[in-house]
């Protein structure tokens, strides 16, 4: 019987309530530990295709008659295009169409940042389209440029109308009564996703149906947004994404390039590709916003944190949302008195976009460094301090599962190494160990659906209209179906990537892919399995008869199973936990920091594919190292234009920058969460790494770093400050 239920769903820390239809009976979770297929390492099903270069990305798509679009973007950080003459573009060879502000969603007359899209041209080749764009005449009226976030806050220029405030307990009294109060300001920089496949879409109209081939993290979200914006019924929009080259949160929505391609395709009657160049990827594809965090912590001498107070300023940009930088401060520790205020500063800079645990990466850096400063002041071991302030509920709401204490226990041998590591320091290279805890979301939610199709050959095909953004979704889904059906993994195929071919699938963001789609696949496989069992009974076959034999008589008939993601547990917080223990070496004369070893211990419920899971952890750690040490988007302070527009200036880690990474999982199913008990792992590994590195730097050198990236400039400054402090007689933190 179908039931209609209202349930709460969270993505990237933002909550909403949704209606879902639940049809099937709840399945019992599998027991803990590796099963026949689930919980065992599995090579990626689509691995050979990707490795051989045979996987077709949106960037590889070539349709007959396809045109190329180029975009005119504002050179000014704030300006209005008063007069635009597209005429000159049409004079140039190969130009087939040109559109201006208002003619496609995302083309605006008022440019709120340098790089904002204003007009676009479609031509036979990209070079011709670019020439067309350069020929467009624009008269700009330059407007006031606001770049400084504190200035914006003072003037009330916020992207939400109000700052977000939170308070529990009595913060002022708690601070006054604390034995020790630590105060510090932390700053984090603007970081760019820089996925290797740039943002792009190819749009083609076939009659009144729009086909959108797009590099995306959310096929169904694109479908809905495009249909909504263009005033089409959703069934008249088909979205395809079989392989995509990275997103990390930046590809959750259609954005201007999709609408530009759709409109130009309509006008020309030909398919149109609109692809960002790498330069545009640096200016107009989103970012993790910079933050300023003014924090205070009060503690008793026994190590109890009694007060946490933070003022967070997010440099959101021209538009975007106010990420929850204060989340860790609110949620990680059992502290009775907490107050936070978070400002989303509206600036004439490119809008932020979700980037792998938005807000929490930045906020964990500030909080976990502050906590270590408290530990230093109280002369309490940092691991011990975290244990003393362990939260057993989320502000009163029980956790669906929390095994952070297990993570801490597993961290002990890594943490023990600190004596040996410190002792290996010499006059130039100082070595130390630091740690940081992680809290984040990862429960996913409904809706998500899957179908399982079984033929007389005993092979199963899982059909979803899901995307696989590189996390190994195809393989995990195959494992789940194989486990439920009792089939070997090689007998299960997964078909995904096309909204015309499969039911609704969730976004691949917010660490929600596995916890959202996994249970739906299991339910679909279970539905098919039950039908197979019915057939076996009718045929009088003994229990244990292999599936192939049972269905062997079917010939052209098929068994079709369907499944849906059920509701989330009510009255519980579904969160993920972890801890990183990092060893660094710092050259105290040159400020060079080398991350030598990272132990990453995560609690994300049941691990479906330990091989793929370890890759997620390594990837998150390495991306986090980039954030911590070398990546930075820089602006020209005078004009507000981005200066770091290419990958030689915006430097991400190479293979030479990789430390030893030890990856451990608690791997205990969340018994309250779905028929699978798995949470998402995409984001947790990037959350604590910056703080763990900064804390290790302090352990090694006594120097407090308060800014990301920890450039040579920042490291040398911190070393000098520590030296001065020591001269004045105050001991540097140990």
């Amino acid at each position: 019987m179908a039931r209609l239920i209202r349930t709460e769903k969270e993505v990237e820390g933002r909550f909403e309530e949704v209606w879902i239809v639940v049809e099937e009976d709840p399945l019992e979770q599998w027991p803990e530990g590796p099963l026949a297929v689930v919980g065992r390492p599995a090579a990626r099903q689509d691995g050979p295709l990707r490795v051989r270069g045979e996987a077709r990305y949106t960037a590889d798509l070539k349709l007959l008659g396809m045109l190329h679009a180029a975009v005119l973007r504002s050179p000014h950080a704030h300006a209005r295009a008063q007069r635009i003459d597209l005429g000159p573009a049409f004079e140039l060879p190969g130009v087939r169409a040109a559109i201006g502000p208002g003619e496609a969603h995302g083309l605006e007359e008022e440019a709120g940042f340098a790089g904002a899209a204003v007009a676009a041209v479609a031509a036979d080749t990209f070079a011709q389209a670019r020439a067309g764009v350069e020929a467009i005449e624009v008269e700009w009226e330059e407007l006031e440029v606001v770049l400084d976030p504190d200035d914006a806050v003072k003037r009330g220029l916020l992207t939400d109308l109000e700052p977000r405030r939170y308070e529990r307990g009595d913060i002022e009294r708690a601070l006054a009564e604390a034995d020790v109060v630590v105060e510090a300001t932390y700053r984090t920089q603007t970081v760019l996703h820089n996925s290797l496949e740039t943002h792009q879409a190819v749009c083609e109209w076939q009659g009144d149906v729009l086909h959108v081939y797009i590099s995306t993290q959310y096929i169904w979200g694109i479908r809905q947004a495009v249909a909504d914006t263009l005033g089409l019924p959703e069934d008249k929009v088909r979205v395809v994404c079989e392989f995509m080259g990275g997103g990390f949160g930046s590809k959750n929505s259609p954005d201007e390039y999709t609408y530009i391609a759709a409109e130009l395709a309509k006008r020309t009657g030909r398919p149109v590709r609109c692809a960002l160049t790498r330069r545009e990827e640096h200016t107009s594809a989103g970012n993790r916003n910079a933050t300023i965090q003014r924090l205070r912590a009060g503690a008793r001498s026994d190590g109890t944190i009694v007060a946490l107070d933070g003022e967070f300023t997010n440099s959101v940009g021209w538009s975007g949302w106010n990420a929850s930088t204060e989340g860790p401060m609110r949620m990680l520790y059992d502290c009775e008195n907490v107050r936070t205020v978070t400002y989303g500063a509206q600036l004439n800079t490119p809008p932020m976009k979700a980037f792998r645990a938005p807000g929490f990466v930045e906020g964990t850096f500030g909080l976990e460094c502050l906590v270590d400063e408290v530990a230093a002041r109280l002369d309490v071991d940092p691991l011990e301090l975290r244990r003393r302030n362990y939260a057993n509920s989320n502000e009163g709401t029980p956790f669906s599962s929390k095994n952070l204490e297990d993570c801490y226990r597993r961290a002990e041998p890594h943490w023990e190494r600190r004596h040996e590591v410190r002792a290996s320091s010499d006059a130039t290279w100082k070595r130390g160990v630091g740690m940081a805890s992680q809290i984040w979301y990862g429960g996913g939610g409904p809706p998500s659906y899957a179908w399982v199709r079984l033929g007389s050959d005993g092979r199963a095909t899982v059909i979803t209209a899901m995307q696989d953004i590189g996390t190994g979704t195809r393989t995990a889904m195959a494992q789940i179906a194989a486990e439920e059906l009792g089939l070997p993994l090689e007998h299960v195929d997964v078909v995904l990537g096309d909204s015309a071919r499969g039911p609704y699938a969730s976004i691949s963001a917010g660490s929600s892919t596995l916890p959202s789609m996994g249970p739906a696949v299991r339910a679909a496989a279970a539905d098919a399995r039950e039908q197979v069992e019915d057939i076996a009974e009718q045929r009088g076959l003994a229990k244990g008869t292999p599936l192939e034999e049972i269905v062997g008589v079917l010939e052209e008939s098929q068994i079709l199973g369907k499944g849906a993601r059920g509701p989330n547990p009510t009255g519980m917080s579904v969160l993920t936990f972890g801890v990183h223990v990092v060893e660094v070496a710092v050259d105290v004369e040159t400020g060079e920091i080398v991350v030598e070893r990272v132990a990453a211990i995560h609690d994300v419920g049941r691990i479906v594919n330990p091989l793929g899971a370890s890759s997620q952890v390594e990837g998150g750690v390495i991306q986090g190292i980039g954030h911590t040490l070398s990546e930075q988007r820089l602006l020209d302070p005078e004009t507000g234009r981005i200066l770091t527009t290419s990958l030689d200036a915006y430097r991400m880690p190479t293979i030479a920058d990789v430390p030893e990474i030890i990856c451990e999982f608690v791997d205990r199913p969340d018994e309250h969460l779905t028929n699978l008990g798995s949470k998402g792992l995409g984001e947790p590994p990037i959350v604590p790494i910056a703080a763990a590195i900064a804390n290790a730097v302090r352990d090694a050198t006594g120097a407090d770093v308060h800014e990301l990236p920890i450039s040579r400039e920042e490291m040398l400054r911190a070393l000098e400050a520590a030296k001065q402090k020591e001269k004045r007689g105050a001991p540097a933190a140990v």
Partner: protein
Amino acid sequence: MELLRPSSVAEIDGGVFVHGGTEVVPLLREGLLEAERLVDVRGIVPRGVRDGVIGAGTTLAELEAEPGIPDALREASRLGASPQLRNMGSLGGNLLQETRCWYWRLGYDCRLHGGDRCHAREGEHREHAIFANGFCASAHPSDVAAALVALGALLRTNRREFPVEELYRLPDEGNRSTTTLEDGELLLEVELPQVQASTYLKAMDRKRWAFPQVGVAAARHADGSTRIALAGVAPIPWRIDGIDALDSVTPLPRTEWKVPLARALVHRALSALG
């Protein structure tokens, strides 16, 4: 645009020289360089090492693997760029590469582009120069150039022979170029004197594939003298007489940090020489 491939110097008749193309091709694409005619000089410029004479067409990868060359040059080659770029890029091209200053690379109308401002001085300059930065604050990115200056290399073109330092000049009001090559002049060979010892130390913000924040080349010559040259600290490779030269730096507010870094590396380079 046409692409010619002459087989002798005599055949050259104008055009922009290209060898490995790692600098010229991106500059053309960005509109920072214009050319009607490209002249592929790989048939003309010598390549390879023979008796202390290095063909300017020798790639950085070849220098990295070459046993007979001084340590400073080998290290500078080894630590430059990426493996692919070292396979493509020539020694000559590397000496002639343009600054990485973001304002220059984005086509701002700065002094090097013939304009009347140095945007970096007034704006974002944290990767820029600590010496000779009054007119233009750009930093010279070539590791190999610093190594050759410290090694006292001699350059041979199709017209002249001169010490490598004379390849470079500070830009000024009358002439914005940082090199002294004339139109149609082609680097052919580099000749190295024998040195007793040499080294190159490079500070970067990731372990590989980054331009020098500070690079220090040092060589002890046969006569006992020591030559030191720095990359990343001035608009051209910067020769200093000794570590005391760092007392007369003129850093910008956000290039101050390069001074202690340079000091540490110069000290280490000199210690490495023994």
